[in-house]
């Protein structure tokens, strides 16, 4: 069997159903082996979108998404998507072609040292040097990508290794000597956590992306309801907890809810679950958590103490840690009452900020649009976002109800991520409506994926909040550079309705709330992708806002 055939068989054995990719000289044997294979290949228009699609697919399936690219430029085009997946701990297996072994190091045509390039943004990068290594390499790649703290893995296969023949053995089990991801929580540490929680008067749960990655939704809810404590999330953790739940307070951080930012600094004990204390979430490391006890649950031991020293660390899969914690706690306490001074404080803060923060005065605003989308989109609908104000408005004004149905490029902040990722999500969940909450600048970066959405029948909705600007940068220039705009105007921006139509998708412009309502309903019924172009005021800012380098207490509440 050839190396290329072995690759495809190994992928089939891993249960891979969809591959996003684009061929070229160095992966022709792989594409040849795809003919007649039992996998769906989705041809992308740019490899960056292939890696984002694989990422979006992975976040919904919670197993590795796969993308293919040729050597050199194909491989480097994948890198932004790989780095995005790395920053958000998403399992992606990227397979690249490489120049033949005897050409490596000779600056051959389309040669890039992709192993070197990918090293800092993958969990591991393999380069099998003989065809017989391929089955085991693929097995290892999936194991590493999906287990522990998930992440991307690259497999770079020289062209002659793809064509060479060998006797193939497909292992059922593999071991990687230097890799032992921890799963079971240490019981003594859980016991110490229980003590701290029971001692606290104003405890709070801060749920991060780890809750979503491990699917610990029920456990998190059980814990919150047992303790009757407010739940905030990080932005990556948005949707780890139903945002319409009476204990939910939504995301904290740079563009978190004001009441969430306020309450977390008033807490006396923080239970951080699958959250990495990113600067975007907690502001200044030196300020955050002062005078509070901090319990940190995470699967990655290296996250413990990286940004924040903690009182108790529980290392392991957060789902199993939470199970143990809930079990121990429920033995110690009866179910708590739904009224307490601390919960009254929660209500008070929500009330206060809902009266203080005024919506932007215009018929159609980002906030109103997103509330309308929430109203009309079924609870199980999946939402992705682009990057910028659109993303932060989504953080603030779009409540996620069904856990795990929202995701965004939160770690790397990659413009152009949301749209291809939404197509990947649609491939993973074809019967669920999928919406990309977009800004015009971001959508512009990967809008050619409209071709994929239309031709491969993966209809998604692009909810384009169009301010004809690189809005978030413009907001920073308004706020921090005295309105000196530089490089933010999207002059001659295209007509997105026509763009959609040119690709065979549906384009609708919605200039009033009534038009928007109609557009959303039509998009939800459509069997092709729909771009809803919603012109909003370029001056509409996102508030509240925690300026970079400041602490949560310095939040700016309004313009």
């Amino acid at each position: 069997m050839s190396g290329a055939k072995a690759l495809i068989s190994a992928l089939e054995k891993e249960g891979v159903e969809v591959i996003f990719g684009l061929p070229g000289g160095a992966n022709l044997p792989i594409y040849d082996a795809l003919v007649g294979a039992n996998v769906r290949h989705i041809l992308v228009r740019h490899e960056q979108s292939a890696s984002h699609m694989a990422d979006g697919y992975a976040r919904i399936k919670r197993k590795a998404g796969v993308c293919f690219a040729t050597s050199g430029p194909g491989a480097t085009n994948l890198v932004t998507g790989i780095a995005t997946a790395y920053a958000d701990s998403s399992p992606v297996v990227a397979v690249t072609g490489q120049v033949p072994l005897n050409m490596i190091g000779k600056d051959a045509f389309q040669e890039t040292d992709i192993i070197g390039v990918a090293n800092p943004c993958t969990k591991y990068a393999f380069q099998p040097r003989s065809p017989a290594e391929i089955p085991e390499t693929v097995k290892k790649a999936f194991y590493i990508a999906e287990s522990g703290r998930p992440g991307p893995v690259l497999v770079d296969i020289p062209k002659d290794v793809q064509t060479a023949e060998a006797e193939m053995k497909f292992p059922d089990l593999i071991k990687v000597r230097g890799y032992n991801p921890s799963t079971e929580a240490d019981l003594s540490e859980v016991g110490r956590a229980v003590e701290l929680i029971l001692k606290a008067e104003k405890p709070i749960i801060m749920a991060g992306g780890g809750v979503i990655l491990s699917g610990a939704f029920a456990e998190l809810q059980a814990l919150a309801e047992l303790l009757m404590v407010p739940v905030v999330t990080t932005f990556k953790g948005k949707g780890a907890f139903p945002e319409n739940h009476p204990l939910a307070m939504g995301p904290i951080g740079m563009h978190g809810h004001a009441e969430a930012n306020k309450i977390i600094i008033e807490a006396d004990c923080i239970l951080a679950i699958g959250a990495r204390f990113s600067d975007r979430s907690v502001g200044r490391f030196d300020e955050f958590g002062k005078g509070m006890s901090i319990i940190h649950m995470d699967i990655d031991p290296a996250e413990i103490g990286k940004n924040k020293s903690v009182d108790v660390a529980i290392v392991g899969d957060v789902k199993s840690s939470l199970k143990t914690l809930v079990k121990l706690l429920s033995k110690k306490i009866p179910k708590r009452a739904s009224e307490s001074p601390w919960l009254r404080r929660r209500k008070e803060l929500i009330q206060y900020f809902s009266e203080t923060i005024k919506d932007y005065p215009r018929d159609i605003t980002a906030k109103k649009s997103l509330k309308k989308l929430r109203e009309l989109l079924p609870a199980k609908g999946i939402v992705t976002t682009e990057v910028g104000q659109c993303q932060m408005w989504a953080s603030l004004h779009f409540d996620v109800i069904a856990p795990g149905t929202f995701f965004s490029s939160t770690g790397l902040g990659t413009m152009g991520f949301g749209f291809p990722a939404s197509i990947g999500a649609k491939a993973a969940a074809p019967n669920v409506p999928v919406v990309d909450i977009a800004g015009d600048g971001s959508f512009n970066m990967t809008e050619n994926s409209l071709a994929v959405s239309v031709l491969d029948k993966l209809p998604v909705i692009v909810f384009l909040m169009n301010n004809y600007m690189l809005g978030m940068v413009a907001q920073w220039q308004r706020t921090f550079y005295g309105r000196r705009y530089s490089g933010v105007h999207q002059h001659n921006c295209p007509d997105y309705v026509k763009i959609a139509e040119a690709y065979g998708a549906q384009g609708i412009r919605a200039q009033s709330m009534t038009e928007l309502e109609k557009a959303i309903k039509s998009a939800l019924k459509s069997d092709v992708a729909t771009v809803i172009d919603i012109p909003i005021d370029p001056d509409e800012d996102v508030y509240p806002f925690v300026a970079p380098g400041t602490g949560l207490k310095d939040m700016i509440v309004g313009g």
Partner: protein
Amino acid sequence: MATTTTPQTGTAGQPKGNWYIVSALVENKPGVLFRVTNLFRARNFNIESITVGSTEQQDLSRMTITTNSDEKTVEQLIKQLRKLIDVVEVKMLDIDNTVYRELALIKMKAVEPSTRSEIINYATIFRGNILDIGKENITVEITGSPDKIDAFKNLVEHYGISQLARTGVLALQRGLDN
């Protein structure tokens, strides 16, 4: 890469204070050294010396890393190293319970007979070896703690060191359970 700076010296003449030795067993294959050193750079870890060489096990290499930083940073360094898939085992060595050595080759100007005999004398006291003598120079080999090498270097500096090469620290924990 393998530069060595002076560790802080405690009263017993032993490096003390913020000096740490980390020992790692890694897969013996191409790319591993790159992954490790790239991690140091990317995570902003300040490494003093790193040595890599073969071990009693054919497929494993040992890396000895010394650093002068605070305990939290070293803990984080170890955790990040552990995350590397090619790194099989990492630990911080307890300096009091560790044997460690560095080797230095020092080439000095030595034209006068008196200078030569002085240098040879010093080398003997430091249990060093004379590796090479030319008409105008002497090359000495000194093995020992980085401190000892520093001390020798300070002693002979005024003769004019024309070249110096240090290996970085090699270390093994005492006792059997290693």
